[in-house]
């Protein structure tokens, strides 16, 4: 089909008639022009039916022509819910109607509306949930007959990313107010960002009729646009949707494949107002549209929206629309004015009368009726208004194929209300107004209740001057701009809502909600507007209540005997309009930390795992050999020597005259008498006496401690150290040097031999370098800190070296250890080794309630020092009996499923504890573990009943800890 219904230039400011484009809709080929949307090109081809409604499958066409409603939803190749009135056509584009069964014209579910009485609001809540399990049977059916587009699960999204922008003034909306404000702010010296969701700047100037001659809008638009372009400090962003307003003038703006995070010292919201539909029988028929939609079709796309038009006017804009239709060659049969009297001073009204158009005041369109093909408007019935929402018993039927509604506006409040602005209702003007704006936010234009274009431009200057003043760039302007001409009289009809005995007067087009649905929701007890929304789903569709909020508020107010102001609207939350997940997810940053030895692990076949932000080697070998590899690593540490990367351990330097005093207050142990050259276990509790971290504190000099912390806990420990010393004000400096020092644990009976091969400036002899000793020395030319510790229960040395030397250190140790059978071991083997030795892991074997006594660490708590963090609580806890104890257990039945962390310990049906660690021990040849159990069961010899995988009950015997080498002879091996 071809472009056979185009109006001549200058109509069609958005299209390029030199570039014809072919595209397909529902498999049929159509022609359009560059700049057309799917909806405008289809309309130019005489195709007005675009979709079927969500619930009743009613025919739907253009309502707003601005992407603000769900009527134009179509299935695009990579977009399941594209808006046909926003979606630009391009060569080869193929879109389909959605939510249809059969064809769009003869959808098989189109008769559902006939049974709408049996499908009231909440019907599925009431009808399909009983008996139990029935919903699962019904759900597929409902999902088939309702719903929107389909997601292409094979779609690979394009690259999306984010960028920060900073401006003195950000202006949202490039209509007359926005453009004028941008000019004023730029002239005042501000750096300005002017953004608009549309491709064209100008807003309503691109389509509105401001004067009888129809020239003013274009003249103003050209003038202001030219001035915007001439200002070098104005950056213009077109097709840029401001989708969220957040605290401190943080704006989320989507343009193309990028989400901009815009920071503004001052924000000017010049976002305009959204025209509203009237509510009457069949107000959703294709051919019934907002007056602004008809104007957009003509001015921007050169498409006559119909041949025989009726205009329903609740304000003067209806006459502007009528004049534009007349000039475009559309027959206007009548202007039906809801008002008792039209304002004869309004120039466009006089022009309409001069063109001999019939004006019927005090009347309304009571119902619309389809024409022959049932899918488009054929006529309207006009009746006299006899009261609020009431009409005469009969009226006049007027044939038409176009009904333009100009009955009022709602300010585009969403972004402002996201920031905390208050939406109030002016009963006299029947209009929502905004107040309590967020700090450093101004509004101008119709969103500010200023309507005539001259007043809008003045208001914009005022708002810009206010912003400039706040920026210290100008004087504070005087007050609010009065809007006092004929154009600015009440723009909203007070009650353009007319119930019909047959219903189908749609309040919410997205969800097919009629007047009765809203009223019945209140009768079902859901009287608050928020509850009405959730019960009826009003405002929950794709258009998010843009065209239902006002009517719903009015109806709920009426039904609950409240004012509209008291009723209000539902909460506005970001995003303002739909946005893709790709925009939010695109180019997110997930920090990854690697130790200096990372690639050595990879080269040696490690399977890496995440530990917080860190990559750590889980084990070395093929995944299918996981358990074999882990057990071999354990065996090698016990028999020879192993090397594990512990660079992720936290490290803090605590230095200064009060370093010992600081640690003495911070950790549970005593540190004042700790000798230089010795390490001491450091257990950390919080004020509630809960164990929150552990490590070792190495006294390197009188005033210098090197303190380790757990991989996941170091950030918290460092923060706690700073917090406490801010109170104690001790003469101490605390530095987090976690990354600065890498570390390895060289463990196994041959570990001293390996070290001896590399180190000649430290006496490694057991007597001179005892367990928990600390030395500084040189290994393979690298200055290191050596700690004799025994986390895995063997003779072992933690070697800490400057981070950049990590790989060289690893290489040196592996080379030197080759003759002693050295093998790397990973985190999994380390977990088993430490479990065999009965060492706990903070966070795995402790929880948010664990105190030192429960985890059998009373030995690590000083009872003699006057204070430590958590000490007072622990003292009190010690006065009461324990509720639970972390006990060791073994499972003798090797065929039983090995319990996992958090498996329950049962006493009959009662849960009495839980497993925190459990693994098969290669050394002991059976599963071992730790579990919280009642103290009475924590004694050696008691039997625990653990509910293991698959619900299998496993008997476990409580044993004394540690499981391995209770005399700790292994860590004193002197080979």
């Amino acid at each position, binding site marked *: 089909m071809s472009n056979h219904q185009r109006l001549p230039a200058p109509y069609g400011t958005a299209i390029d008639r030199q570039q014809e484009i072919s595209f397909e809709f529902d498999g049929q080929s159509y022609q359009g022009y560059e700049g057309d949307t799917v909806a405008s090109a289809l309309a130019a081809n005489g195709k007005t039916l675009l979709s079927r409604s969500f619930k009743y499958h009613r025919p739907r066409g253009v309502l707003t022509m601005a992407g603000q409603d769900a009527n134009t939803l179509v299935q695009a190749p990579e977009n399941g819910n594209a808006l046909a009135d926003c979606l630009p056509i391009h060569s080869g584009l193929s879109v389909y109607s959605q939510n249809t069964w059969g064809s769009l014209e003869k959808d098989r579910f189109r008769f559902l509306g006939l049974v709408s009485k049996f499908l009231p609001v909440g019907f599925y809540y009431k009808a399909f949930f009983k008996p139990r399990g029935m919903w699962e049977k019904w759900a597929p059916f409902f999902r088939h007959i309702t719903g929107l587009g389909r997601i292409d699960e094979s779609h690979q999204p394009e690259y999306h*990313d984010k960028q*920060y922008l900073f401006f003195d003034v950000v202006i949202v909306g490039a209509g007359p107010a926005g453009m004028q404000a941008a000019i004023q702010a730029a002239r005042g010296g501000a750096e300005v960002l002017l953004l608009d969701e549309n491709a064209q700047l100008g807003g309503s100037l691109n389509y509105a009729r401001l004067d009888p001659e129809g020239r003013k809008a274009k003249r103003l638009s050209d003038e202001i646009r030219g001035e915007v372009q001439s200002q070098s400090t104005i950056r213009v962003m077109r097709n840029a949707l401001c989708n969220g307003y957040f605290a401190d003038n943080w704006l989320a703006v989507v343009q193309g494949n990028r989400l901009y995070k815009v920071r503004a010292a001052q924000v000017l919201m010049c976002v305009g107002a959204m025209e509203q539909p009237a509510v009457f029988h069949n107000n959703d028929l294709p051919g019934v549209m907002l007056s602004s939609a008809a104007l957009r079709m003509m001015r921007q796309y050169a498409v006559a929206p119909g041949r025989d038009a009726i205009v329903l006017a609740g304000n003067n804009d209806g006459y502007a629309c009528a004049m534009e239709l007349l000039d475009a060659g559309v027959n206007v049969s009548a202007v039906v004015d809801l008002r008792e009297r039209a304002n004869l001073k309004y120039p466009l009204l006089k022009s309409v009368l001069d063109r001999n158009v019939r004006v019927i005041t005090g009347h309304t369109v009571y119902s619309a009726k389809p024409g022959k093909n049932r899918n488009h408007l054929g006529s309207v019935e006009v009746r006299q208004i006899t009261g609020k929402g009431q009409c005469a018993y009969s009226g006049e039927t007027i044939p038409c194929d176009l009904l333009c509604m100009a009955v009022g506006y709602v300010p585009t409040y969403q972004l402002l209300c996201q920031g905390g602005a208050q939406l109030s209702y002016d009963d006299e003007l029947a209009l929502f107004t905004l107040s309590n704006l967020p700090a450093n936010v101004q509004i101008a234009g119709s969103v500010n209740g200023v309507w005539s274009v001259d007043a809008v431009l003045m208001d914009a200057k005022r708002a810009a001057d206010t912003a400039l003043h706040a920026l210290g760039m100008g004087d504070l302007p005087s007050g609010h701009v009065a809007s006092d001409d004929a154009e600015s009289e009440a723009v909203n009809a007070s009650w353009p809502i007319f119930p019909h005995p047959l219903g189908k007067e749609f309040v919410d087009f997205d969800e097919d909600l009629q007047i009765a649905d809203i009223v019945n929701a209140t009768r079902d007890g859901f009287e608050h507007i928020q509850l009405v929304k959730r019960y009826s789903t009003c405002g929950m569709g794709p258009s998010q209540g843009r065209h239902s909020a006002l009517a719903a508020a009015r109806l709920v107010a009426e039904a609950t005997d409240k004012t509209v102001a008291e009723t209000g609207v539902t909460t506005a939350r970001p995003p303002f309009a739909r946005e893709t997940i790709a925009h939010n997810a695109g180019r997110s*940053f997930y*920090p990854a930390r690697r130790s200096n030895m990372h690639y050595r692990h990879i080269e040696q076949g490690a399977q890496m795992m995440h530990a917080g932000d860190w990559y750590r080697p889980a084990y070395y070998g093929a995944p299918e050999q996981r358990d074999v590899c882990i057990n071999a690593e354990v065996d090698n540490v016990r028999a020879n020597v192993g090397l594990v990367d512990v660079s992720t351990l936290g490290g803090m330097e605590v230095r*200064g005259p009060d370093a010992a005093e600081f640690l003495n207050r911070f950790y549970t142990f005593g540190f004042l008498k700790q000798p230089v050259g010795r390490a001491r276990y450091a257990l950390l509790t919080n004020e509630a006496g809960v164990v929150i971290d552990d490590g070792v504190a190495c006294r390197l000099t009188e005033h210098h401690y090197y303190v380790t912390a757990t991989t996941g806990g170091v950030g918290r420990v460092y923060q706690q150290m700073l917090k406490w010393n801010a109170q104690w004000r001790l003469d101490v400096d605390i*530095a987090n*040097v976690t990354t600065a020092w890498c570390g390895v644990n060289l463990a196994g009976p041959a570990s001293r031999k390996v070290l001896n091969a590399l180190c000649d400036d430290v006496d490694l002899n057991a007597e001179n370098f005892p367990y928990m000793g600390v030395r500084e020395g040189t290994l393979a030319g*690298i200055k290191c800190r050596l700690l004799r510790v025994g986390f895995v229960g063997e003779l072992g040395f933690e070697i800490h070296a400057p981070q950049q*030397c990590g790989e*060289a250190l690893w290489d040196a140790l592996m080379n030197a250890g080759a003759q002693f059978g050295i093998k790397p071991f990973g985190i999994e083997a380390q977990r088993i080794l430490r479990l065999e030795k009965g060492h706990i892991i903070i966070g795995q074997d402790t929880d948010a309630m664990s105190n030192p006594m429960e985890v059998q660490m009373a030995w690590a708590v000083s009872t003699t020092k006057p204070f430590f963090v958590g000490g007072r609580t622990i003292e009190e806890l010690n006065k009461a009996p324990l509720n639970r104890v972390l006990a060791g257990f073994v499972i003798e039945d090797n065929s039983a499923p090995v319990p996992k962390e958090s498996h329950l310990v049962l006493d009959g049906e009662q849960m009495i504890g839980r497993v925190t660690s459990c693994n098969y021990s290669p050394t002991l040849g059976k599963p071992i573990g730790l579990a919280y159990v009642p103290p009475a069961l924590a004694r050696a010899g008691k039997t625990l009943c653990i509910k293991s995988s698959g619900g299998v009950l496993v008997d476990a015997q409580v044993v004394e800890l540690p499981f391995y080498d209770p005399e700790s002879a292994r860590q004193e091996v002197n080979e």
Partner: protein
Amino acid sequence: MNTAKATRRNPLNRLHQANGAKFIHINNAEIAAHYGNPAIEEQSLNSLALCDLSALSRWGCKGAGAPAWIESLSLELPLQANKSVLQSNGGLLARLSMEECLLLDNTVSNSEWPNAIEGQCADEYPERVYSLPRADSHCCFALVGEHSSDTLAKVCGVDLRLAKFANYDVAQTSVARVNAIVIRADQKDTPSFYILSDLSSAEFLWTCLIDAMQEFDGCAVGLTAFQSIT
């Protein structure tokens, strides 16, 4: 790359090597001198380039005695925190707080001066001056060129536009969600930012920056090209 020769090793060098880097030895480490054609790399400096300077020396100190001790070494200390000063030897000294300093080298010729001061601190053991091993805690990149601030706007929430973030200003912030010290230190007339971040996150941050630079046709350059503008 012969990593066996160097005790200090930069894991990022594997990535540089994969991109064709040729290395030179400096400061007991290897650093990418160029990626094949230093002349082309020099041309990209005007527009956008990223150079890994992690192998160069840097050191820091903090404590109540740090400012006085630093000044006693005839080094110029900024009067305010979050400012830096170009030293007479070509190095940079940033004041991160009133009691914390960062000494940064950006040239091969003077590559050892922070190390020398570190050694002096260890020898003198000045009262309440606490050494910070910045070469091991932080990587160091130089982001250079006209689009450097545009690139940073894609990864950092601080306003680093050239008109707002003056030469030698310091921002301690987050870049691509990792903590970073950003120092603007233009090289001659070329906008330039030093980015110091957690050394263990170096590969992550480098990858993020290279990704953000694609839009502006930015590329990695070696030390040779970078030094052509220092």
